[in-house]
């Protein structure tokens, strides 16, 4: 009887949490009329902003992966002084208020900042530019990639890397043929998480670049200028596109043959 009551309480509490997540989304979908939605789909400004959001977030994730993945390997495999501090620094953007993160990035990429000056010398302004947006997105989302890839590398038995070394492989060959393929699933999860997080970023991006408008900024702008009714169809469209891309990326990452690491091998 007691067990039964406990199960019911668990079920009700779990349902309430799920309802809390699903109800606002369902309400938004239900309250969006098909005519408004079709008009929004055809709206060039909305199309451009969603496209911009997708490609800039993907580019930021792709470019930063080249440095973030080796850093993740270092964190998983090497012990060095102040490693804990380095780990803390990596997690910092996650806990910062995103507008504060935007201010920090803006200071870095403005004409007075180091990166801004360098870019200026090359004739490029990072403010109100997709490159600046990419930097703001990467700043708040790169910890997701680093942490997931680090966990992936840590789960690869170190002895497999040692075995490869004793078989004559160079350190770089060991990385590309053993560590990277075996940590691939976690790296892809981190990649998707970084991409998704970057795509949904508003606070940091709006400070760095109001224009060109990424989808979250466009939704905010429609809401503040025209109200809920006008912001809703754009939100629905963005959610659908984001979900479709998210599912597609997950499918691509899962399609890679599942690699079975024997529990013995991790001993």
């Amino acid at each position, binding site marked *: 009887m007691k067990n039964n009551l406990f199960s019911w309480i668990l079920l009700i509490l779990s349902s309430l949490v799920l309802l809390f997540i699903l109800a606002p989304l369902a309400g938004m979908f239900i309250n969006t009329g098909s005519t408004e939605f079709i008009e929004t789909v055809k709206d060039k400004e909305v199309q451009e902003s969603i496209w911009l959001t997708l490609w800039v977030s993907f580019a930021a994730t792709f470019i930063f992966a080249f440095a973030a993945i080796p850093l993740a390997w270092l964190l998983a495999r090497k012990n060095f002084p102040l490693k804990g501090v380095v780990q803390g620094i990596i997690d910092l953007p996650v806990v910062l208020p995103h507008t504060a993160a935007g201010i920090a990035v803006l200071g870095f990429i403005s004409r007075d900042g180091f990166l801004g000056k360098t870019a200026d010398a090359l004739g490029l302004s990072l403010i109100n530019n997709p490159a600046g947006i990419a930097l703001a997105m990467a700043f708040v989302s790169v910890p997701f990639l680093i942490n997931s890839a680090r966990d992936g590398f840590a789960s690869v038995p170190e002895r497999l890397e040692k*075995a*490869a070394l*004793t*078989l004559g492989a160079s350190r770089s060959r060991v990385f590309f043929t053993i560590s990277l393929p075996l940590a691939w699933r976690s790296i892809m999860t981190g990649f998707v998480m970084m991409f998704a997080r970057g795509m949904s970023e508003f606070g940091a991006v709006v400070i760095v670049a109001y224009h060109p408008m990424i989808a979250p900024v466009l939704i905010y702008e429609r809401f503040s200028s025209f109200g809920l009714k006008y912001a809703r169809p754009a939100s629905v469209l963005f959610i659908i596109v984001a979900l479709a891309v998210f599912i597609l990326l997950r499918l691509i990452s899962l399609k890679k043959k599942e690699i079975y690491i024997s529990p013995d091998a991790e*001993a």
Partner: protein
Amino acid sequence: MLRLKNINKRLGNFAISGISLEIPEGEYYVLLGRSGSGKTQLLELIAGLSIPDAGEIWINNQDVTRKKIQNRQVGLVFQDYAIFPNMTVFGNIAYPLHSRKLKRHDIDLKVKNIAEEMNISNLLDRFTHNLSGGELQRVALARTLVNSPKLLLLDEPLASIDASLRDDIKRTLRRLNRNGLTIIHVTHDYREAVSLAARIGVIHNGHIIQEGPPNEVFSKPVNKFVARYAGIRNFFRVRFRRDGDCWKALCEGGPVFRISGNNFPEKGLMILKSDDIKISNNEPSAGSDNRFNGVVREISPSENGMEVTIDAGEIFYVDLPVCDFKSLQIRESSNIWITFPKEAVIALPGSG
């Protein structure tokens, strides 16, 4: 072939210290020790996976102490094999050949030859997660041997294999050694060591405490630790007394042993192999060197038959074949006689 000169390596709270070894070409050397004794760390030092804090490693008259792993011509087979799960058996075996940038045709040929030698040709296209322990061990050996190492290091190669497959792998290892390959084999199992080694080194707490041919190590263990490894369970703390031309050992529990040899210290530890002890229901002749009457305290099955625990002032463990056990009709609490020659009692010099 391999010479270790005073190797020292600190690993956290544990340290390998003062290890010196010389292993001639073609020898089968077994490093015997419990887990945590430093045997795997020593293999990793020889392979080059870690660098000693002090000391030198020489292979084929070349100082390789600081040489890259890839240039040592040493093959290491890990416990649990460390087979790459993202590759087929072929991919695993071909891995070291790809590292050497051999031509595809040569790689195919070498992989096929070694797979045939290791009897795993039928597995080449398979992924490795559903292979048996014996098959995985053969793949790991093939992958290491295809690189033609001068020295093969084996870390507990039989520990994760079913008993039925062990003999098979042992035969393979003996054959490789007969063909001239120098092998260093690490294990915790003294029976494995006895069955394969030309020479044994017993390692304990990062030191090699005894070295020599297996029969010598196990018939004359230098201390209690090695004696325990040899399966000896009869240990007696004794005081030595001269009695005319003979020596006697007085056990703390009462019995006095007549022993052979001379110049013993005042106190020491003596061992007695259980198969050197004879049991009888009737009183033995007075001519026996050592004879004691005792009570059977416990009877339990053992690897060789039955183990009988006898209290004769000290506890004696005696191993009996089942037929002898049955013919003597031994029961718990029954009275029984034990005898053993004085030559069977061995003093452990290092355990006083």
